[in-house]
């Protein structure tokens, strides 16, 4: 009898809380509508405000970009901005994949996306790009963010890149290329381990081999070729991008 009563009590409590939550939700909705009407424009136009807003949400423990159907999306229009950016990011990565094997610096991605958006579109910051990319991960296409130097490499193919590969990428970031001996001296690895990592990157098309370099062969990362930054996406590449 005691147990039954206890259970009943538990149910009542939960129902109560549910009712209380409905009430609070309504009140919160009203406050949010007010907030939204004041700041909707700012969210669209001001990237710093977007960062603050995102930080606020992270503090509370909500993800405003989780669904296009959420409060945040519907009232503030945050969603559309990032979801559309996601589409543009996918298209740039697809178009350039054959050049860089699916690795691209955040800088180059930024420049190409800006170009694609045209002169009259809203400006987009690197922070915006990173947030959009984090959301794209769930699509299973292998989107990843790899910190290198002071910036990031964005991966857009489902190639497996473990800690060993990442660390070699970071080493290569300084000059755009890396050699077996450099890996051995900087990371204190055996030759075999260094070679395995470099061969994997070659196979994935993320590294190119220069056997004619003075000294030993150099492994270059096309993603880091600064000369290629401002190269336009050719019409053939653009076709590859749109399914």
């Amino acid at each position: 009898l005691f147990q039954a009563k206890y259970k009943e009590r538990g149910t009542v409590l939960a129902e109560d809380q549910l009712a209380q939550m409905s009430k609070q939700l309504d009140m919160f909705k009203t406050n949010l509508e007010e907030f939204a009407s004041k700041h909707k424009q700012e969210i669209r136009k001001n990237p710093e405000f977007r960062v603050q807003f995102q930080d606020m949400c992270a503090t509370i423990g909500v993800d405003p970009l989780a669904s296009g159907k959420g409060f945040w999306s519907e009232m503030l229009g945050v969603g559309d901005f990032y979801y559309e950016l996601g589409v543009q990011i996918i298209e740039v990565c697809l178009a350039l994949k054959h050049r860089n094997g699916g690795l691209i610096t955040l800088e180059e991605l930024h420049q190409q996306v800006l170009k694609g958006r045209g002169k009259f579109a809203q400006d987009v910051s690197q922070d915006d790009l990173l947030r959009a990319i984090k959301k794209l991960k769930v699509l299973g296409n292998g989107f990843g963010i790899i910190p290198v130097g002071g910036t990031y490499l964005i991966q857009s193919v489902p190639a497996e890149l473990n800690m060993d590969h990442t660390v070699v990428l970071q080493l290569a970031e300084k000059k755009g290329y890396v050699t077996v001996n450099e890996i051995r001296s900087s990371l204190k690895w055996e030759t075999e381990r260094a070679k395995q990592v470099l061969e994997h990157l070659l196979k994935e098309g993320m590294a190119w081999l220069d056997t004619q370099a003075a000294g030993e062969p150099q492994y270059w990362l096309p993603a880091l070729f600064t000369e290629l930054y401002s190269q336009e996406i050719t019409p053939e590449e653009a076709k590859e991008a749109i399914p």
Partner: protein
Amino acid sequence: MDRFAWTSGLLELGETLVVQQRGVRLCDGEEKVKFDSGVLLLSTHRLIWRDQKNHECCIALPLSQIVFIEEQAAGIGKSAKIVVHLHPASSNKEPGPFQSSKYSYIKLSFKEHGQIEFYRRLSEEMTQRRWETMPTGQTIQVNKDPQAGRIRAVGIVGIERKLEEKRKETDKNISEAKEMVELSKSIANKIKEKQGDITEDETIRFKSYLLSMGIANPVTRETYGSGTHYHMQLAKQLAGILQTPLEERGGIMSLTEVYCLVNRARGLELLSPEDLVNACKMLESLKLPLRLRIFDSGVMVIELQSHNEEEMVASALETVSEKGSLTADEFAKLVGMSVLLAKERLLLAEKMGHLCRDDSVEGLRFYPNLFMTQS
């Protein structure tokens, strides 16, 4: 513009490049000058502008000359700008393109975008003031103009007050929202513990609340995946939208292709990646003519129910046999598929034992599995 000095453009010892942007025009206050198309570089010590057509033409401004900076949003036909307010030029300044100027500010006009990033970096450098702690070959110009200091203080106090107001309002929102979220989380936990005391209906309603708030759903019911009514509706819509495109693409599309296609078609009220995945997870249980499939590699695709990837493997084997061997790239071009899906098909064929791989630095190449057929 009279604060600028001619320079070689080379960085001094101890000076580091922070960011650079092409397509920047300089303006002397409100007036245009001949420096209309150049690369603007920000270093730890200076702002450097180099003409894109004539690399010899290069001018620089020490960051210590800057009082404060403002942003000017873009307009129709106008690029976004940064307005840079400057101290008067010091008497021992190196020669530059202008002897005098009637303005105490310049404008940087970003014709090829990049203004946001540049502004952020410039603000950072202005805060960090690294030029004071990292001496370089150049003489560091220290400005001790008391007049300018006083004027600056008034302006800054006004700005700080506005920021404080904003912060307070945001804090209020944060604490309200925090309460909401705490309550939601406690109920979510209660549901998890006592599944059965709360009705199915209420659970679904509650999940909608959570979805709306953007809270990750801790309650996963396998009957409907992590879906809600919204995702159910969405799944049905997708079945309608994707039928034809799928048929046009041989019955299979990657989820990223679907994401782009659907959102480009929508224009407004776009789907989040999570919405798409959650809706697709419900396709099979709703008995719709499409289904979600996840390959070993993690790649996710939508297939027509009528599509049979295993049958496609048989025709893939034929194609590879005809050519002797193929890489994913070559196969993709031959058949007219995306490289991503071509690779998945070849990998599946390998898994089923029809193909063998030759994995070398020249790439991954597939051959018919003669061990199977010729033993």
